[in-house]
């Protein structure tokens, strides 16, 4: 079973994603801040990370992305944020994909599936 790490500072989002993604057949880990997130990445090496960019007062998602890639450049990261403008921040170019948050999670789930399949195939 593939493990997905959901990084978001909002608890309700984490809960929603955990429920939805678990139901879709993934093992889901969640983190609400950078420390938790990076610790989980180091310890568990998830198969995929969904990453919010604005995380309360802590370092922002782009820094976390950079840190994740420094830990393991092979873990695919999907930026998942309420902002579509971060697409223009070239910091996100280190990520594999970018999905704007929506209550309709089908797009996110499609991308996750596609990335995991691609990884499996490669």
């Amino acid at each position: 079973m593939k493990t997905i790490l959901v990084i978001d500072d909002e608890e309700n989002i984490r809960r929603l994603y955990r429920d939805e993604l678990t139901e879709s057949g993934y093992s889901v880990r969640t983190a609400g801040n950078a420390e938790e997130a990076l610790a989980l990445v180091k310890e568990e090496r998830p198969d995929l990370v969904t990453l919010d960019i604005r995380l309360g007062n802590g370092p922002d998602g782009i820094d976390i992305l950079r840190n994740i890639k420094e830990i393991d450049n092979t873990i695919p990261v999907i930026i998942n944020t309420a902002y579509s403008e971060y697409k223009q921040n070239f910091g996100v170019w280190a990520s594999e994909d970018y999905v704007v948050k929506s209550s309709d999670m089908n797009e996110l789930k499609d991308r996750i599936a596609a990335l995991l399949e691609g990884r499996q195939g490669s």
Partner: protein
Amino acid sequence: MTRLSTLIGNILDTTREASGGVEIDTLLGDVLSEALDAVGWALYRSSSPGSPLELICSDRNRSIPYPAELPPAGKTEAAVCGEPFFLLPPCPQDGPLHFVFPLSEDDLTATYLLRYPAGTDATPLDPGSLQTVAAALFGAGRIGRMLHRKGVHCRGLEALSTLSRRLSDTRSPSAFLEELTASLQDSLGAAAGRIRITHPVWAGAGLPEFTAFPDGPLPPEHGLKAFETALRSEGESLGTLSLWFPERRLRGYPLHERFLPDRAAFLETISGEIALRLMHLILQLQAEALVEERQKRLQELWILQETNNALRGTLKLNRILKMILAGATAETGLGFNRAALFLLNEKTNLLQGMLGVGPDSAEEADRIWKSLSSHSGLSLARQIELYAETQPNVSRFDTLVKSIRIAVRPGGGALSSCVRARTAIRGGDGVLPAPEAEITGKLSMNEFAATPIVARKQVFGLIVVDNLFDGKRITDEDLRLLSMFAAQAGLAIANAKELRAHQRSAEELQQARDMLMQTERLAVLGEIAASLAHEIRNPLVTIGGFARRLEKKLGPGDSGRKYAGIIASEVQRLEEFLEEVLLFGRDRQPRLEPVQLNEVIHAVTRLLSAKFTEESIAVDEDLSPSLPPVPADANQLHQVLINLLSNAMEAMPGGGRIFIRTALTEGPPAEVTLTVTDSGGGVEPEVLGNIFNPFFTTKSGGHGLGLALTQRIVTAHSGRLSVKNHPGRGLTLGVALPLPLEPGLLKNIESVRKSGRGVQQ
């Protein structure tokens, strides 16, 4: 005795008649032949004492040789002085009797010879009586001569006073000549004459150097006695007077000759009087010319001032052009029939017909200006203004003028050379170079004047005028005034153009300011929208997400499932709305994409290459070949580069070098840098701090936004704009654009770009 008294009575009568103007010699001849019953008679004369006797007249023009028996000519006077008359012995051939008696005066010695048939005792008078007759004749001759001379003098004085009066009444050269020739003919009886007046004023009055009477070629001089004198007044030579008098011959006697000394003196007097009158007239003409000149100058000044007044009233170029032509054609202005204005397009070097003012017919011209000048007391300035306001540009002439383009080039036509030489010309038949075909053909301007409109050393165009309808000749004076007028027009045009340029740059400034404000407003709106969206979007995702979950969990029969579905779809509607709001705000932000800086530089330098050549600017490049793509809005980066290069060019108005360099800084932070260095000498240290301030500029034509906008763009790219001043050498402007990751981590850029999702909407 009766006969003698009758004879003497006749002689006296004759004398009286002679004083009435008949030449005494004629009558004396008659008396001698008729009263004395002489067969023949002859008069001899010696013009001066001691000179030979010459026959001056005889009966029936039959010449009687002076008898050899008579005392030699040189001794006549002596001979006759001793004896008043004497009888000659009869000649052997035909045997006539000759009586010879002298008539002598101061200026004349004449000898009368009477001839009687030989062999007949025809002597009518005894010697004593003959002596008496001779004495009477002698006395009568003297009296008659005196009377005659007196008459001549009186007539001369009369002629002189008439001449003087008639000449002093004249006010113009032509009237003077007319009166002079009439007087010379009427009073002096001159058959022909020629007056040559050489004074420059005379030529200035447009009169011929010679006037001759009668009209046409002068009669052949044969048979005329010429008199010629210089006309002088107060030592100044005014000209010459030549007169010819008829040689009225009566019985072969050239009458005038006897009076020539008198007449010559009289004619000198007459010519002196003529010279005096002429001098008066010349002085009068000079005075009039001075007054006229002064009036003309005043009029010119007035026209120029009035035109200036009118032109000062407006700064609108079209209106100015119209007023210029109105001034050129106004009756009280320059008064040309038609005027056309051409403006020079500096880029294409074409003279472009802008405006033609001129009626299509003489009647129309009259009507227009009459209607304008009918407003009594209207100044020229006001007339010109009125014209510009009221006259529509619908004339055929104007349409024709507007259709004309004339190339200004070496070897061009008259107008082309007028612009090139910057001098006014008067064109007509035979002028070199020939006028352009458009001018003679389309506009039918055959006799015209053209003057360039020059102001501040720049040629703006030219004015062409003509007098098609009244055919008035265009004088040097007209040309001079037209040139002055054009100079004034040039200033008005230059002012209007300058104002227009100022207005344009003010408008651009305002636009730039508006744009900035708009951009800022939108940026603020975008930021508000974005932060709102962020705050709302997360809860919406939660609400909607859980509503969808609920909808899935509840069974088909459960009424709650329907409600959850409603919540989910409403949330989705809200999310879509938020997306639209965000799109609006984001629109003003740079659209970043991986951009190869070197490619942008190539594109821009290619774009500006013509400009570089034109401004004599050499461009050196040192572009790093290993430059990774930078996140940038290609269009905005393009703009940044244009601004930097324009700034450098403006710092080197006389040409110079631009050095463009790109480099990669591995970092951290990793950056791509671009520097543009000019050789324009740098800027003052106190200016340096201001160069990025909006609206700060040291250039006359700029609005100071170039570098300020550059800085905004660079900042929007999270980059830095820097400046390095090298006083006396140049200025370096640098742009540093950050790379998102160390160059080694940029492996995904291409895939992100290609995915079409990462960057593009």
